[in-house]
């Protein structure tokens, strides 16, 4: 099963490598990984989505907690959460295709952030499923490039 882990870490050199090295060294999977600073000085938050059975996820969480530079680990899959990912998607958009693409952009409530003679760059935010749906729809026009942030997530206020 897929789990989203929210990991609070000391923001010091090597911390990313400690976390990623733990995953590779013990044969765990990282599906997506996102790191950014928090409001607190010297503390960053990592969001990792990973897959594994109960026993593997339990090991991953314990092993992460064992790292000295890891302050806190929360498995957001265990609680109600909001999950979002952002993606930039560059799609071929020659005359004749463009109107159809813009209609899809509309339906998906995403936006065009860059326009070229024969291509469009679209920004979309949503769950993994929504991003996958857009990719599937855009495939027939010819996707040139995508860049995704990986999931970020937060516990919902009302549990």
């Amino acid at each position, binding site marked *: 099963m897929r789990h989203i882990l929210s990991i609070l870490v*000391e923001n010091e*050199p*090597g911390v990313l*490598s400690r976390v990623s*090295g733990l995953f590779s060294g013990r044969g765990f999977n990282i599906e997506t990984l996102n790191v950014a600073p928090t409001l607190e000085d010297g503390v960053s938050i990592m969001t990792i989505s990973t897959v594994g059975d109960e026993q593997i996820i339990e*090991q991953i969480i314990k092993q992460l907690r*064992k790292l*000295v530079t890891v302050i806190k680990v929360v498995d957001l899959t265990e609680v109600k959460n909001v999950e979002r990912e952002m993606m930039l998607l560059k799609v071929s958009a020659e005359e004749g295709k463009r109107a159809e693409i813009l209609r899809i952009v509309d339906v998906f409530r995403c936006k065009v952030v860059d326009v070229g003679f024969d291509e469009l760059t679209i920004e979309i935010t949503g769950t993994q499923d929504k991003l996958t749906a857009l990719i599937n729809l855009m495939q027939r026009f010819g996707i040139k490039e995508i860049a995704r942030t990986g999931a970020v997530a937060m516990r919902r206020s009302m549990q």
Partner: protein
Amino acid sequence: MELTGAQILLESLGREGVDVFFGFPGGAVIDIYHQIPNYPNLKHVLVRHEQGAIHMADGYARATGKVGVCLVTSGPGATNTVTGIATAYMDSIPVVIITGQVPTPLIGNDAFQEVDIVGITRPCTKHNYLVKDITKLAKTIKEAFFLAQSGRPGPVLIDLPKDLQQQKCVYSYPKKVSMRGYNPHYDPNVKQVRKVAELLCKAKHPVIYAGGGVISSGASKEVTKLAQTYGVPVTATLMGLGCFPGDDPMWLGMLGMHGTYAANHSISNADLILAVGARFDDRVTGKLSEFATKATMVHIDIDPTSIQKNVHVHVPIVADCRLFMEALNKEMAAIVEEGEGCPPKTKWLEQTAEWKAKHPLKYKPAAKGGMIKPQSVVEAIDKITKGDCIIATEVGQNQMWAAQFFNYKLPRTLLTSGGLGTMGYGFPAAIGAQAAFPEKLVIDVAGDGSIQMCIQELATAVCYNLPVKIVILNNGYLGMVRQWQELFYEKNYCNTCMDVAPDFVKLAEAYGAAGFRVTQAKDLEATLKEAFATPKPCIVDVVVDPEENVYPMVPAGKSLTEMILV
């Protein structure tokens, strides 16, 4: 008071109670070495290879329970310690490794003798540091010593660039450490203790399975008390040997691949297993799906990651083993007081005694005038010393025979690389233990293969007159691999025959140590006695039966009861 980085380091080592440390100089640590004469309370042991230094620090730590310290230079000096760091990591041994590093402005430029040792050792240290700010040096050292010996102990490395060793700052050594990401949990949960006590009272076939955690937490007395008071048989892992007296009726012997018949059958038929400070290593469990299938599993460990890692545990307990065992003994006493009592496990004890009597550890004795059996050498050491010595081992057959045929009675009397299985470990570890206990008899049970991996430390032993006794069980083979080739690889002895070896007697003499050779069983005890009485380092080269095997044996991947017996 302003001190240089080098002075801060040495001053702080003193504050941490370090009396001896092991090292080898080089360009990136000259500044530290320049200061060593100013700290006469810190005895420095100059080794001949950095691997020797880290193993000595490790042996010192295992024998004393204190933190072992080693100091090496950047680049190759640092990488030479990696095997020893991994050895200490696998066996949870507290060591602090100080490595020199090129000056900070050169880091990342592929400078002379530069290596990213923090990157290299990240997966085999408990934690490591690259110090880039002189004002954080004292705090870093304090943290390193705290981390090394608290929670589940382990090696901690500090990489110290040369320019920081020269920079100055006001020195103040912190009294306390606080790290928000590190809070080992020591105290046992009261309800869990009660639950285990009730399980133990109800159990008909209980077994205590003790690991290295019993020794590192100092729980031996409590484990022994529990076992003796309520009649619970005890088995231990290689790392746990010495935590329970080997001559006690409750003692089953070591379990696992080369464990005793009684231990492996007891664990397989147990209805309750108290796993104390052990980690269900594959060499212990054999085929996992058939390991102790009838038992309710209670697992006590300070490290949460050890629990539920390999086997499913019914009662997981994260706690310090000593504190837990103390609490359990109290709880048991309370239950007995309440009148509910803990019925004796008479039938079970009869059964385990029968297993012990049926298949004790044994070997085919040598034919008259035949070659000496390696097991008899270990037995002779046990007999001569009456168990009053520290045994270090190398890795392979020598290690298993040293584990099987010596009666360990006290914790910290066996120094052996259990997890990593590092050949070349024993001799330097023995030197480290000897440096801690100059008056004690320290013996390295070695093979002719592994002794050659750190043999250069003979110079160190002679130089500091650390009179370690090396007893080589010389079979002319890399015996354990040869045994596997014999049993599972059609006797294809590919590259395991060490027919070209030095004359160990002359080698010992060349280094200024004493050398002895034994080829006849009748000379064995007298020669060992003579060597043990010689006040300098000795090699006793015992020529043994070349194709003797370690038995019992559970072939890799088989269940514990599928044992090959003698």
